[in-house]
């Protein structure tokens, strides 16, 4: 029996093609994944991401605990409402999960992935034993992401005045509460927008109001191509417990100082190693589609693999992430026995609707 979000009937009413996504019945698209992708780049779309996990932490030791638990440093969150993207590592320096941590007035809120929920909670519980911390998963919450160039203006037109006022004061990667609604200027598309954590009872009302204002529902298919164009990793594809943050383009999120976070020794050892794989953007120079697991070659040597791949609706070509041991001038991907040239590029591919990549030379 699949779990359902409280927007399930809204998805079906909107023509959602429902699939099993990590045990949840979720919409893969509502007719055309390509149209949904382009609509988010041009206007505004909404994503039901209620399957993701909200974890709240409070207690006298919550800050030292999170400074130990996370590879990014919550000390950087100077005021209530600020947010940070971080990896949570195992002692071997592999990525247990990627998450966003929000500083609240009291304590912190983590939003972690859906498929990693039980593993993350068990790990956090185990690591917190020596700390005076209370870990809770607040029940009966929905999460709706609204993303696109007109997302904020449409949102403010459907929110009540206190909510709209809060939203207008938030900068990117800031958050706050308006009553029991939590509004955050975060997202997974490379566009303007917000993610709203709200009581289940309020979610269908917000959905209908946004729908009536021209915001279209967006399925998981377009969510994946949007995040790929935006240069954002997908847990389980681009990184997992066996992958160092240095090998998945997350080095920028790892902060070394005197706090000694879990996995730090292993990350430092990896940094010292002379050769280590890295994750880069690649574009297919010929017509076609890139897909995860395709092998990557330089001359005759296999140098890596695609961890994600798709046809980019914005760029109209195959794009992907490649984990490679070396970036050379001539990279090739093997597709159905044929080697086709790849162009290594900087990430992201697309931001605010525009191509922003440059060729790595």
């Amino acid at each position, binding site marked *: 029996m699949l779990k359902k979000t409280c927007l399930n009937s809204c998805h079906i009413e909107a023509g959602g093609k429902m699939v099993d996504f990590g045990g949840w019945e979720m919409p893969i698209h509502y007719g055309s994944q*390509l149209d949904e992708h382009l609509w988010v780049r041009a206007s505004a779309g909404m994503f039901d991401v209620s399957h993701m996990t909200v974890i709240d932490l409070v207690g006298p030791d919550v800050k030292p605990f999170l400074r130990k638990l996370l590879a990014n440093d919550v000390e950087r969150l100077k005021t209530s409402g600020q947010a940070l993207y971080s990896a949570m590592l195992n002692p071997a320096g592999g990525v247990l999960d990627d998450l966003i941590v929000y500083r609240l007035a009291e304590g912190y809120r983590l939003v972690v992935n859906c498929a990693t929920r039980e593993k993350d909670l068990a790990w956090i519980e185990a690591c917190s034993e020596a700390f005076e911390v209370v870990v809770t998963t607040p029940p009966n919450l929905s999460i709706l992401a609204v993303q696109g160039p007109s997302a904020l203006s449409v949102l403010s037109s459907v929110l009540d005045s206190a909510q709209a006022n809060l939203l207008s004061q938030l900068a990117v990667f800031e958050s706050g509460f308006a009553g029991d609604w939590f509004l955050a200027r975060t997202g997974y598309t490379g566009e303007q927008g917000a993610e709203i954590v709200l009581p289940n009872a309020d979610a269908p009302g917000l959905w209908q109001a946004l729908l009536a204002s021209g915001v279209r529902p967006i399925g998981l*298919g377009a969510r994946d*191509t949007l995040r790929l164009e935006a240069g954002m990793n997908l847990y389980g594809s681009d990184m997992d417990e066996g992958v160092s943050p240095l090998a998945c383009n997350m080095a920028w999120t790892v902060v070394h100082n005197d706090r000694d976070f879990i996995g730090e020794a292993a990350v430092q050892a990896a940094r010292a190693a002379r050769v280590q794989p890295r994750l880069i953007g690649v574009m297919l120079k010929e*017509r076609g*589609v890139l897909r995860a697991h395709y092998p990557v070659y330089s001359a005759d040597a296999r140098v890596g693999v695609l961890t994600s791949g*798709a*046809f980019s609706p914005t760029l109209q070509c195959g794009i992907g992430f490649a984990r490679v041991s070396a970036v050379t001038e001539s990279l090739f991907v093997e597709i159905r026995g044929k080697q086709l040239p790849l162009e290594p590029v900087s990430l992201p591919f697309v931001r605010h609707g525009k191509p922003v990549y440059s060729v790595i030379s």
Partner: protein
Amino acid sequence: MAETRDNVRYLASHEWARLEDDGTVTVGISDHAQDALGDVVFVELPETGRSVQAGEEVAVVESVKAASDIYAPVAGTVIGVNDVLDAAPETVNDAPFDEGWFFKLQPADDNALNELLTPEDYRALCAADDH
């Protein structure tokens, strides 16, 4: 419910084949197939002049979801391909039985199409697919 046509024969792998008045065979994928694939973003077509066996992989259709092989329904020679699909692969979604055809064959055996699934057989197969 996906559309089917009665003037074509089908493969269980969801290709259709239509015998034209001039004895050639036009090949495409069914409405059921395009709906299952989702938005088509790339089609790799065979070289004209290639001779193919029945059941041989001759083309590839790539959608937002997956890459799928397209099989020759009958043995013969490729005598034409639908160049429209190079620039407008979405034509496969829009008109799978008409403008979204893939390639044309000169069949080695004029009667080979009779071996393929009838529209009734194919509708039964799709109905089973949907459950």
